[in-house]
């Protein structure tokens, strides 16, 4: 099974997290790959892979720039994602009280609508917390992999 790490970013935090997750996965002997969502097509999603999505929030609770072109295609995508498993890690900032961490939720909703199943806890990073994004994500990762191993 290949683990595909996808990220959507505007100021690079999600990209760094995605790369760190990918590095950790490879160190631990997994087969994994990482893509910017803007270089990724909904058609290539397959139940043979496990997806880890890392995505921030911009504007007012919206997706970041590099996730927008993907999301446009994903909205119109008519495929069936039943059997596809994925995990979600959202970035945001509690400074934006009303729209905190909603960016990734747009993707999450669409995955679910298309029949995919989210595995493990929904990860979150809050920029106002001053925690290092990758630290939070790498702490979150084993729980997700455990849940995925149990489920598959």
């Amino acid at each position, binding site marked *: 099974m290949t683990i595909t790490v996808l990220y959507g970013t*505007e*100021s*690079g*935090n999600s990209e*760094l997290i995605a790369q760190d997750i990918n590095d950790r996965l490879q160190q631990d002997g997994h087969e994994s790959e990482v893509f910017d969502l803007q270089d990724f097509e909904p058609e290539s999603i397959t139940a043979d892979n496990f997806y880890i999505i890392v995505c921030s929030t*911009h*504007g*007012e609770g919206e997706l*970041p*720039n590099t996730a927008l072109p993907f999301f446009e295609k994903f909205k119109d995508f008519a495929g069936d994602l039943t059997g596809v498993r994925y995990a979600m890690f959202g970035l945001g*900032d509690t*400074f*934006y009280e009303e729209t905190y961490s909603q960016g990734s939720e747009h993707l999450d909703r669409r995955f679910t609508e298309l029949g995919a199943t989210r595995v493990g806890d929904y990860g979150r990073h809050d*920029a*106002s917390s*001053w925690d*290092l*994004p990758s630290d939070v994500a790498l702490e979150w990762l084993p729980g997700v992999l455990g849940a995925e191993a149990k489920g598959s």
Partner: protein
Amino acid sequence: MSEILATDHAAPRHIAIVGSGPSGCFTAQALHRKWPNAEVTVFDRLAVPYGLIRYGVAADHQHTKAITRQFDRSFADGGVRFAGNMEVGTDLGLDQLRQNYDIVVLASGRWRDRALSIPGGKLPGVVVSGDIVNALNAVPRPAIPMPRIGRRVVVVGAGNVALDMVRFLIKTDADYEGSDVASAALQQYLEAPATEITVLSRSPIAAAKADVAMVKELGKIDGVKFSYANTSPATDDNALGRKREEAFAQLAALEVDNPRVRVHFIFGAEPGRIRGTEHVEALHLQAAPAGEPSVLECDTVISAIGFDVNAPGQWHYAQHLDFTPADATGRIEDGLYRVGWLKRGPHGAIPANRADANEVAKEIIADVEADRFHAHEEARGYEGLPERARANAVSFDDWRHIDEAEVRAAEPGRIRHKITDHDTMLATVRAATTK
């Protein structure tokens, strides 16, 4: 100096980046990722890294500054070198960089306020936003004192920096909890803060430049009564313009008993002249929406009307080069590039500089792959630079001593007390490293 065939090297060995603001740091990240074995050095004239993230972004927006943690990592793990206190043009020449590096990327930014060019624009009492930003952010080299601000203030401009100014004018000391604001500068203002503020925007709300989130944020500050006048409303298809209008309507609808301060926005207003003999007394509008007075009595005018694209001195190290803003290409000549505000002009936020840095990095990679770069046999990278300049350089570890000293010196309620002068920064490094 003999040029050797670039094909002798699969990759550049030495990469220099001038400027440690976001565009320089993002470029360093991207190039280091591509060529992990190349020596990448980010130079800055200041002893401390991160350019306008440290010195432009408002002190009460610490969350925006969190982005520096990405860059901290590339510097701390030794992948990228920071060389502060090395000004290109004085401490070293661009030609010295060119001789010692296969690739040189200029990321020195451009930031100087556009001046208000109306009659009376030079009267005492007319203040450029940059002077306030500099004082609140404790910009060194040189430190700029907090300007005097009176009770009745007109802010000219309605972009994000103008809104930074409005927030500063209406916030109280308690609102800076957890920030790194320069307390003395803030205190000077708060001894007699403004009570009446008028904000002038040339364009209607629909076309104004401020982010909606910035407008909404104003509404969270206690004790302020907002009002506004607008000219033409947003068209139906202008979703963003309508959102901004809604945000202003919400601001104006806030009920406030006994406001400490009143803020009135006038959209579609054109300042004509500033009147006063020794000092600002009033601002006369050339055009104003119906029902608005055309004379605003005031004692201070703060201009925040954008930055000067051709500010002199920003590229004194390379006066022979053309730095007219351009979006298309970062290449100046083989092996020499520019990125960020120095390339595109002084507009756009940090994320825009990331996108630009990635574009220019791609261009550089493509050029290297096509053998279009500047590889010399005798290029020695950092080691090849004058010993004197290197001896005075501030490394990333050195900067951490400054960082620690600043954090240690923080007053209650502040996360740091920035050192305001360059020499003290250098002395702090010396004291910590010769112990």
